[in-house]
């Protein structure tokens, strides 16, 4: 009988998950799923962060105050805190394909409503509702974990998330260019920004439809009902949830992610306005600089994953923890510096360096996540992912709402918070592998299955 494995373009394991990762191939179903996943998540980041680069125009048209802008920035992440937690269950029940496409398509009308809004309150509601679509990060990672085997899943997850995050940067460059193009037809500025929003909305709709028509949930087909492998014992959802929530490492990683990815989200929100206001740049130049922060994700987040894997190979979990702590602390120092430099040239240099380190830290965080718990991996991923958006909300609330601190002081304070919130990494300890300062306390050839049952 011909082996089922041979029908796939890529080499696969016993579950038909791909064991290699070829990002420049479109082979169905694995690489095609990868491209659909990162592209549709890219579109949601593109829509969510399409507003910040155009804020200098929007704030005048909608009569916004600094308080309104700050509240809207916070609102933009609040929705995604809950939607990210819910998305994990939705993927389990409906499959990542339907869950992500449904969320994207239902959020498209929200993006289009940028054409109608005219008050600060409606602006805040708009940002809140668009933010829900960021939950597609969870379906993206879930889909990659379903398609790629353990030996490449870290890389697949890192590249899928990194390339998608580039959307937050690309939009800061592209939206001002679209706006400039529209105003060149003598359309008034207050209308031109609204017309510009048709682009991210349509892009999001098209990618979501592509996911529905060309994607499939699993290497063997789509979800019909929850497939349970007979080798794994059945677990109650509640027990799995409780087990994950009671693991302190999940909370520490959530806090860590809140101060690398959360800071990245916050910077995406404030940086274009910061450069526009502080250095008197025009909207396209401020957008281009803001974009350079986001597009670096193309390699810096995957690089974080690769570094984590390499350090893990050489030094075990200790290497992964040390590299995470070092990279995030350096990122914090660069953030402090960013608020202190007074010239445009130095600011651009610092922000480029800062972007590499903060995004690598995000990749490094998800290099530790799979080791925390095998039984409650989904819950730990959800806690970490949500922690990212909680960090963004808290940072924006404390530092970037209203006019209490100048923006440059707030940026430096954010760097201080990053350094403080990465010190708990030093407390993470795995009895069988050790921690940053202590060696393992169990026998080093602990059987994987026994670990799995306990953790």
């Amino acid at each position, binding site marked *: 009988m011909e082996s089922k494995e041979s029908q796939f373009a890529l080499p696969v394991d016993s579950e038909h998950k791909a064991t290699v990762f070829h990002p420049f191939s479109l082979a169905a179903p694995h690489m095609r799923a990868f491209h659909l996943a990162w592209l549709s998540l890219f579109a949601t980041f593109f829509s969510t962060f399409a507003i910040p680069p155009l804020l200098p125009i929007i704030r005048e048209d909608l009569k916004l105050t600094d308080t309104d802008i700050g509240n809207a920035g916070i609102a933009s992440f609040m929705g995604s805190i809950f939607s990210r937690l819910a998305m994990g269950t939705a993927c389990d029940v409906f499959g990542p394909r339907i869950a992500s496409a449904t969320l994207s398509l239902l959020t498209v009308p929200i993006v289009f409503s940028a054409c109608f809004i*005219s008050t600060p309150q409606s602006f805040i509601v708009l940002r809140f509702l668009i933010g829900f679509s960021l939950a597609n990060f969870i379906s993206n990672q879930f889909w990659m974990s379903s398609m790629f085997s353990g030996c490449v899943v870290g890389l697949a997850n890192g590249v899928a998330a990194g390339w998608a995050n580039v959307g937050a940067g690309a939009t800061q460059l592209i939206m001002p260019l679209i706006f400039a193009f529209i105003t060149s037809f003598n359309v008034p500025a*207050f*209308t031109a920004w609204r017309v510009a929003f*048709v682009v991210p909305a349509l892009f999001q709709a098209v990618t979501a439809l592509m996911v*529905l028509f060309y994607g499939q949930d699993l290497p063997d087909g789509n979800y019909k009902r929850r497939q349970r492998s007979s080798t794994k014992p059945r677990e109650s959802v509640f027990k799995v949830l409780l087990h994950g929530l009671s693991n302190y490492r999940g909370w520490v990683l959530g806090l860590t992610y809140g101060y690398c990815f959360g800071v990245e989200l916050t910077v995406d929100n404030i940086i274009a306005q910061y450069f526009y206001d502080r250095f008197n740049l025009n909207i396209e130049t401020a957008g281009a600089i803001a974009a350079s922060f986001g597009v670096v994700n193309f390699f810096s987040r995957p690089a974080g994953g690769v570094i984590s894997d390499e350090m893990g190979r050489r030094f075990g979990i200790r290497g992964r923890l040390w590299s995470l702590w070092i990279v995030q602390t350096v990122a914090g120092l660069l953030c402090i510096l960013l608020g202190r430099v007074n010239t445009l040239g130095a600011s651009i240099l610092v922000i480029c360096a800062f972007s590499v380190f903060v995004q690598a830290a995000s990749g490094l965080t998800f290099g530790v996540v799979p080791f925390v718990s095998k039984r409650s991996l989904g819950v730990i991923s959800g806690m970490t992912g949500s922690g990212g958006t909680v960090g963004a909300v808290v940072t924006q609330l404390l530092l970037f709402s209203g*006019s209490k601190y100048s923006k440059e002081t707030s940026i430096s304070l954010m760097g201080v918070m990053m350094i403080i919130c990465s010190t708990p990494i030093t407390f993470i300890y795995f009895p069988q592998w050790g921690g940053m300062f202590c060696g393992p306390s169990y026998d080093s050839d602990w059987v994987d299955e026994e670990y799995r049952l306990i953790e």
Partner: protein
Amino acid sequence: MATRAFLVTSLLLSCLLQICSGAYFSSLQRTLIVTASPKAGEVLKSGEDKITVTWGLNQSYPAGTDSAYKTVKVKLCYAPISQVDRAWRKTVDQLTKDKTCQHMIVSQPYKASNNSVEWTIEKDVPTATYFIRTYAYDAEGQEVAYGQTTDAHKTTNLFGIEAITGRHASLDIAAICFSAFSVISLFGFFLVEKRKTRVAK
């Protein structure tokens, strides 16, 4: 000899610094008289209404006060009430950093009297409360004097401008159509899938 050279250098340096850091508003003399057509409390529409501004040297100042004035710029400036909670419109004494006056009405060579301009309010002027200020510049392009339609505390003789609405009927319709399309296509997909599974069964 050395001390003289030192003095000259330090004088040059301080002049250079002054030019580099720009003039300070508190150091400017209010030697120009500026009047504008909007009455106090009047609200004008951007894109439609016109503002007429006239300005000239205040004759009560000694002759020769305006010897350095080469060009003037007339600007539309935000009143304090429109600057509250909006750091991007903040008033700062150092004029290179000051954001009070962001809309240029006209820029022309200086004349002591008979200056007048009629300006149609541009469509990108936002809804806010305003006054008008005229800056006089020297040959190096540095502010040396000013005049404004309001008092020193910017409380009197302020007027409002109402911006155009950015909304457009055709844009609203296009947005509704595309939104409906995306939601309908989602439910259409579910219907097709259900029909496929029913046929397969």
